[in-house]
């Protein structure tokens, strides 16, 4: 975008190129057109105007995330959900590492009882982080895993339980119902609790990302989003539509394979990165 508006004269072709840049960043054709139309109405240099339009789509306010128990002296449940292959398990390891750095105690619940070796993958991370894991046999009821994990955390005075769930396409009703059931189990075990439900979204996802976020949010209620694989060439422009339409904040960006590659989401920096595309 910087390059497009660097030339001095701004004509129809310049705006069209700007719109294409937004589309190429997965902002989506409808929203890209809206951003450009809004920018043209602004009394500001074009690049600044587009920047302002994009920032206006993102939610205002503080995004600092720390799970706090709603029920005194009980563990806070954190449910990590998303479609297949977005990086849920790796993200959980990063979240756990982050919490532990603050001195928060964490227990992991291996509630992905479906994918082959998902439990082993979570265990490998837990060993590296020296964290306790609650796991059942393959194909066990994920709700029961979470229930036991909350019990174990409660007995051991552990502050946060992060539950890994099986990847599921948002179009599969039976699998979506399973998530609702896990949430019910939590509410039964910890009446009055407000689980943190975090949706993991792959940065390379296109327009389907909005649909994913909407269906997961309608089904279980999502509190925040973590966008993974931001170290790829993708710009994750779908985030604008998600924050604008669903009012769901992006909390973190996954930026690599190691445990500390999890950055708090910074709207200014996110928009700047898009500009440098």
């Amino acid at each position, binding site marked *: 975008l910087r390059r497009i508006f660097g030339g001095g004269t701004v004509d129809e072709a310049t705006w069209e190129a700007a719109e*294409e840049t937004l*589309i*190429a*960043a*997965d902002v*989506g*054709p*409808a929203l890209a057109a809206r951003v450009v139309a809004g920018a043209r109405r602004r009394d500001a240099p074009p690049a600044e105007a587009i920047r302002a339009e994009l920032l206006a789509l993102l939610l205002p306010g503080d995004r600092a995330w720390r799970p706090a128990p709603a029920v005194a002296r009980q563990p806070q449940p954190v449910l990590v959900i998303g*479609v*297949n*292959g*977005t*990086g849920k398990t790796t993200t959980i390891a990063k979240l756990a590492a982050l919490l532990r750095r603050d001195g928060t105690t964490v227990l992991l619940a291996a509630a992905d009882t*479906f*994918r*082959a*070796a*998902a439990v*082993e*993958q979570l*265990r*490998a*991370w837990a060993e590296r982080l020296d964290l306790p894991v609650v796991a059942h046999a*393959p194909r066990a009821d994920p709700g029961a895993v979470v229930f036991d994990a909350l019990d174990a955390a409660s007995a051991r005075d552990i502050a946060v339980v992060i539950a890994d769930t099986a990847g599921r*396409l*948002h*179009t*599969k*009703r*039976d699998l979506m*119902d399973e998530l609702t*059931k896990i949430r*019910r189990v939590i509410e039964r075990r910890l009446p009055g609790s407000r689980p943190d439900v975090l949706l993991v979204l*792959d940065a*390379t*996802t*296109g*327009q*389907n*990302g*909005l*649909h*994913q976020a909407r269906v997961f949010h309608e089904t279980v209620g999502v509190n925040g989003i973590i966008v993974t*694989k931001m*170290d*790829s*060439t*993708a*710009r994750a*422009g*779908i985030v604008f539509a998600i924050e604008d339409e669903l009012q769901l904040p992006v909390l973190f960006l996954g930026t690599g*394979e190691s445990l500390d590659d999890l950055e708090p989401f910074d709207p200014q920096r996110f928009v700047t990165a898009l500009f440098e595309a």
Partner: protein
Amino acid sequence: MFDLLSDRLRQTLARLTGRGRITPAAVDAAVRDIRLALLEADVNYRVVKDFTARLRERAIGQEILASLTAGQQIVKMVNEELTELLSHGDRTLHLTGSPAVVLLVGMQGSGKTTSAAKLGKYLARQGRRPLLAAVDPYRPAAAEQLAVLAKQAGLPVWQGDGAQKSDVSASARLAVAAARADGRDVVILDSAGRLSVNEALMAEIRDLAVAVKPAETLLVVDAMTGQEAVSVAEAFHAAVPVTGLVLTKIDGDARGGAALSISAVTGLPVKLMGTGEKVDALEPFHPDRLAGRILGMGDVLTLVERAQGAFDERQAREMTDKLARNAFTLEDFLDQLQQVKQMGPLGELVGMIPGMGGLAKEAQASIERGDMTRIEAIVRSMTRAERNDPTVLNGSRRRRIAIGSGTSLAEVNRLVKQFAEMQKLMRQFGGGKRLPVGLGRG
């Protein structure tokens, strides 16, 4: 959003009813919506630009066929063009060499490991003897995942005992040698997920390909991928000559424009597509079907085939056997429910019939109200033993099931009673009668 878009496109096209020749105005109106539809489907914006320019050129001034409206003729043209773009190259798998080496590459989470197992099973069904091998030293439990999936597919897996795992080229060579020694004619190498910007890992996969000279190098691409699909595919193709694509997660509702973009830009054919979580959910790619899907047009063919495929002959025979032996349990009943579901959400199926977009929404709503989900929840809340023998269900078990499934005791009682009556009925019929066609299709 997708529905809105295809509804809009349908409306625009319906308005274009002129006779004679296709006018520039008609083309402009259609092109505007077609461009939006393609971009919403994640087709790369450059590909869209070329596509709409070519369409305009081809359409303007064309004689409208007597049987069609201008709108229908444009759609036909779009569909032909999309199908042609998706028909690039040779879609057959060339398994030369002994063993033939098939290398799967792609980004993290695209579905390589699952695809490796599915491809193994797919080839085994065609009489091949595949060996699966994980050459992923990075992701925790990657080899274990492949081993579990291989077991589900009934295939051997090379574990690489004693191999220096971090040297993937050496591992791959050992896997190929192991396949040869064991008389396997195909070895499927599941490589680690990597980002195209990671130079070290891209160099690693290049070396691996040089070391084992794959007959097929398949790039595994998530159907939900956005605009970056093209540059990712180009980067992989530059590092290791890719021979084709496997498009995964097509059982979601993504339109899959990424596949079109990659094919259009690189000329690489889509060879296979992953259509579900089970190890046998891998199908040859059909360009015409994806073309219909990208544009949001009906696809009657897929509907019919899916309905046939979901309840296959063998399963029907097994079921008849079980009925005859009076061994039909709630477990089998659950399987049947799943098969109906495998056909996809009912609304989606109806949506595949052209002109039925509105009905699709209603069908979906009725499913959402429906009893099927509640019945399934009840059966799922039973233990395996209870499903196999519902007579053990005493009051306290039934109460637990009602709570676990979020239903009521009355509903559980009703289901158990109905099932018992059904079993009684079956006993009376007994004696190896064939299952009526259509039973189990809901």
